């Protein structure tokens, strides 16, 4: 008969493979045990290594910018993250879901040295969420906007697999610099950035569109699903205080074209009345 229940055996095995201090202590004691009771040290270390490599692989693939910035610290950070926030979902990629939260709660030295790191981790994680989002993107017809009435009765349909983010730091710029290998030792000053992260309905890839504060406001209003093109123009004019309204309208129309072309808007719907 085994000395332990199945539950206890699984608990011990999990600790042996996942907890390095438990493993080292057990294997140190193990050396003095009689052969018959010995734990297979080589096997135990191999499983520990395989698990660690698996965690490191998935984290590095989801957070290439954070891992590049943290450099040699990355492996230790991932190890600590997995200890504190172990995977609780059956999908491997979800292992990474709590990393931004981990950085802000448990990594004060990192957030002090790299005050933008939590936002950068969020930026990288949102990309994964967008890629995996279950919702389907059904692209519809775009209404012709040739008369004032068209603006009043039609609303843009916003891509449902889209996240609008506002960051304290210039995260898209930091990401670009890291990608080019130029961001490793740079200090970045706080400078608000706005970005639309969304999934392209044709390629299924994630896209990043950096926008200004006014466009961010317009996007929030458009996401409500009840704002007509006319409502959005009003918002644009109000936000562009002191600017010639005609110029603002022209810029707005260019923006609408761009948002439709890039599949941020995936069609139009009729909601308003012209009266």
């Amino acid at each position, binding site marked *: 008969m085994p000395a332990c229940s199945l539950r206890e055996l699984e608990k011990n*095995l*999990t600790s042996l493979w996942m907890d390095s201090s438990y493993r080292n202590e057990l294997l140190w004691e193990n050396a003095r045990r009689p052969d018959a009771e010995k734990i297979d040290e*080589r096997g135990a270390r*191999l499983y520990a290594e395989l698990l660690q490599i698996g965690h490191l692989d*998935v984290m590095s693939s989801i957070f290439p910018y954070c891992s590049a910035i943290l450099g040699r610290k990355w492996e230790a950070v991932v190890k600590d993250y997995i200890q504190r926030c172990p995977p609780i*979902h059956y999908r491997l990629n979800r292992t990474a879901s709590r990393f931004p939260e981990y950085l802000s709660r448990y990594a004060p030295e990192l957030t002090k040295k790299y005050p933008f790191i939590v936002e950068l981790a969020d930026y990288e994680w949102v990309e994964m969420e967008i890629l*995996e989002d279950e919702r389907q993107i059904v692209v519809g017809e775009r209404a012709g906007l040739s008369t004032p009435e068209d603006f009043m009765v039609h609303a843009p349909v916003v891509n449902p697999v889209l996240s609008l983010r506002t960051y304290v730091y210039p995260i898209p710029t930091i990401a670009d610099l890291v990608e080019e290998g130029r961001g490793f030792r740079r200090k970045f000053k706080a400078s608000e950035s706005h970005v639309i992260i969304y999934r392209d309905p044709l390629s299924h*890839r994630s896209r*990043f569109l950096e926008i200004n504060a006014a466009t961010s406001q317009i996007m929030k209003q458009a996401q409500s699903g009840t704002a007509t093109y006319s409502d959005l123009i009003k918002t644009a004019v109000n936000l562009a205080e002191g600017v010639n309204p005609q110029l603002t309208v022209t810029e707005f129309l260019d923006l609408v074209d761009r948002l439709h072309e890039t599949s941020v808007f995936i069609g139009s719907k009729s909601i308003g009345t012209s009266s």
Partner: protein
Amino acid sequence: MPVTTQSLAPTVSKRSKKRANVSNFLNQKKSLPYLGVGLGLRRELAGETLSTRDRIDWLELVPENYMGLGGAARDRLDRAISAFPLVTHGINLSIGSTDDLNNDYLKALKRLLAQTKAPWFSDHLCFTSFDGKYMHDLLPMPRTREAVRHVAARCKRVQDEMGIPFLLENISYYMEVPGSELGDADFLSEVLEAADCGLLLDVNNVYVNSLNHNFNPYDYLSKIPLERTVQIHVAGHKRGHEFVIDTHGAPVVEPVYELLQFVLERVDVKAVMIERDQNYPQFSELLDELDRIREIALGASPKLLPGVNVEAFREKMAARKQRPRLAEKYTHDMGEAKHARVLSA
């Protein structure tokens, strides 16, 4: 250790014969379709896989890569459903865990099985989670009598809930688990029979385990209820300093083909497939490996290949053998470029 079909052993264990006439599963197995020779659907090879219907009979997919996912995964799934017979092969059912079964997982799996119209589904005889935490690896279980009862009960439950036959796969393992009361073959046999479910026999795992744990793989096959085999996995492995590792990242070796032949000559098998998960070769090399399996199946168990024109296939293989073999050229898995940032206004 010589690993050849010379070391022939009895096919069906006495225990299995005794149980066979009370098995619902074995009756069910008779009505399962012959799928032929298939391939695991992998993102990196999806384009080529999905456009090669003439040389791939069916596909196996990892349900966790599709359950509740949209985007590219959903698109890939839809294309696979429209072109191939599919079965699912899970990695995180965690059938051996003493945690409760994950109901969210089961619901998502059931939806996927309905979508794919899979004739059966499978997972591994292992545990992958404990105390609500997933370790994302196939971990060997303590092989105890309690574990047999525990796993068997859970197999019955998932089989009932999914409504189609469930297969358990023998895993590769790299350490003897402390507290075990049974050997690997006995543990697998007792679980399969107590659960009355099917076997997904991974012949590469048998071979890898035989090297790592120093046993004769044919002895192992003689001890397990081979007649429960519905599907067979074939794969490659890597020889390290201390262990042979089941990497699914190398060509299939001859002794593994021999084990496949040994099984096909003895029991009725419905489907065989190659698992390739990394270090991807030219796609044509994978297709050649599938043809090699077809060649073995034609000699050992032709009914596995219902759609194959035997004469035409033999002529094709004969012609191929006359050509000089190309040097092995492997490409590294670069994956998809992660950040396809095309817009930065």
